[in-house]
């Protein structure tokens, strides 16, 4: 692995000046995937969402590689069609170069409305990487709750009200759902751990067959943190074990980072406005669930 200074000189496929919000981590996710894909020809597919609308306002584009957007729920199906075209045209001698295919979708476009399309593409075995940039809500339409929103979070469709204190359900474990598709590579990453991220990104790109990466992508508007603190939010999520870093290679679970000292979830929750209304009891309930999930993950990874 090169160091960050060297990596920053790479010609990345997402340019600066892309119009994403200050403090948004989604473009960091994309640029780390670009670092992971360095030296390869890449075609990017993009689900409708913040990343898509901000980076391609006609007649401008922030994408230096070929890029395709179709709709909200079908980034996986669309890029699977691109990959099928590549296979056919390569076979017929009409395309000479090697290409890699990466789809980006937010959690709304991936956990919820795009889950069927993603499941189909993974099951069919296309040689592609699907990267979910998980900011934990429908941020593009104004912070509505999704299947990835943490319990208790205050969103515009799960408002912290007098009777219902924010979202009442736990998140869905999408990475495990993807692992259940028996794909050769699945991983969770967070941009605070850039080395871990880029290493996994490169593995996902190079593996023969479908790969899935779930990337934490804090959103300053939805989470309500200072725009300078996005990477700190990633580190807090990882060190509290709310967002563990692991990979699953051909069904083998492996923890890739174990915090030296597990920090209390309150450190993560209290750093964000969306959890400001939480009582001590709610924080305890949150802590208990994170503890259970962490223990289960340690077992799966042969660490306990």
């Amino acid at each position: 692995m090169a160091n960050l200074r060297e990596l920053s000189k790479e010609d990345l496929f997402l340019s600066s000046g892309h119009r994403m919000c200050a403090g948004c981590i989604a473009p960091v996710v994309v640029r780390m995937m670009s670092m992971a894909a360095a030296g390869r020809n890449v075609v990017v597919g993009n689900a409708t969402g913040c990343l898509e609308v901000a980076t391609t306002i006609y007649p401008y584009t922030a994408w230096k590689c070929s890029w395709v957007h179709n709709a909200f729920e079908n980034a996986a199906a669309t890029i699977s069609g691109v990959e099928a075209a590549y296979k056919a045209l390569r076979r017929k001698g009409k395309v000479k170069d090697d290409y890699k295919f990466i789809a980006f979708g937010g959690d709304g476009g991936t956990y919820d409305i795009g889950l069927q399309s993603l499941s189909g593409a993974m099951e069919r075995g296309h040689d592609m990487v699907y990267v979910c940039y998980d900011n934990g809500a429908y941020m593009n339409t104004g912070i509505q709750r999704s299947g990835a929103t943490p319990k208790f979070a205050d969103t515009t469709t799960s408002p912290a009200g007098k009777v219902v204190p924010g979202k009442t359900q736990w998140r869905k474990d999408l990475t495990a759902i993807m692992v259940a598709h028996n794909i050769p590579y699945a991983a969770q990453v967070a941009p605070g751990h850039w080395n871990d991220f880029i290493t996994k990104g490169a593995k996902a790109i190079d593996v023969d067959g479908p790969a899935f990466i779930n990337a934490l992508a804090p959103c300053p508007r939805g989470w309500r943190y200072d725009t300078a603190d996005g990477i700190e939010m990633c580190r807090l999520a990882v060190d509290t074990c709310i967002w563990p870093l692991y990979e699953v290679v051909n069904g083998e679970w492996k923890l890739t980072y174990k915090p030296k000292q597990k920090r209390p979830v309150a450190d993560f929750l209290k750093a964000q406005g969306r959890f400001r209304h939480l009582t001590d009891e709610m924080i305890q309930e949150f802590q208990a669930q994170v503890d259970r999930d962490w223990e289960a993950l340690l077992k799966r990874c042969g660490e306990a």
Partner: protein
Amino acid sequence: MAQKVAITGNEAVALAMKQINPDVVAAYPITPQTEIVQIFSTYVNNGLIDTEFVTVESEHSAMSATVGAASAGARAMTATSANGLALMWEIVYIAASNRLPIVMPVVNRALSGPINIHCDHSDAMGARDSGWIQLWSENTQEAYDNMIQAVRLAENPNVQLPVMVCMDGFIISHAMENAEVLPDEVVREFIGDYTPQKTLLDKENPVTAGPLAFTDSYFEFKRAQAEAMIQAKPYVLEVAREYAKVSGREYGLFETYKLEDAEVGIVVLGSTAGTAKNVVDKLRGQGFKAGLLKPRVFRPFPAEELATALGHLKALAVMDRADSFNAFSGPLFAEITAAMYDSGAQTKIVNYIYGLGGRDVGLGDIEKVYGHLARIAESGKVDQRLNYLGVRE
């Protein structure tokens, strides 16, 4: 040498797809289209063609993957019916807007509900404003011929629009008919090699496909799309002329049958036109001047040509195998009457909604329509504009 074969509509469409040998087909099975997907998969798995066949998990993904493949410069196809087309809806519009030359057979079937697997035109008629060219077929021969012409038409650099090839579910798709099929090499030479204008798979010239267009550019994109459809008509005819040279079969924007000297006529799409021609013959034998017009190209809508062909009639019945539920008329009636009004024709026009959900349309039903037209021609008055044929009320 062209070959005469006994073949069903689905078999003929699948055979045309084999001869076309597209780069990518992404499709999902649905009655009555299913056989097309099944037959095509046997061609792929037996190595008869080298298409990349993507067995998607839904029609939404079928159209999505087809759009992806076409954006990557592939000759890409899918096929569907009814609810499958409805599930594709969102992406059907995007395919046209992105000017992707996709060809899609639509085996016409009633839209739910209630659920029904039989023929009507509610599926394709619902997609009439989606920006796709629509070619309609009366029988297996026309379905086969339309498929091959569709590829050349869609890919014409001046057209660059997706094409639906419509054929009646079961009535055509599952009925064995005699048809003449072309040799593989004739089809391949006719459609030629496809060279996309832009592709995602060109690292020297990266493209951003499907960007966000705001208030300052969206309208211009749509206007350009509208212009492509306006300009498509001569290319439909050009491709038809070229096809006649290799097949001996001539196609136009529509077909007329004993219409030139007719006093009354009907306009009807698809297989029912065959039934109606028999009725015309019978009535002509009785000295009754009946005629018929069968549209082939519904999109682009040949308004002037239709009005010219129909304007001399005293009375006309436009038959719709789909209802618009607008408390006025079916879709074909609305557009034909608009075209006639514009031309200043004095023809009295009525609408018949018929055959929904596969309700059989017999010779007697069509005779009733002509009988109604005879009364209108004589009285010069339309008693009832909207009529439902062969339904219990």
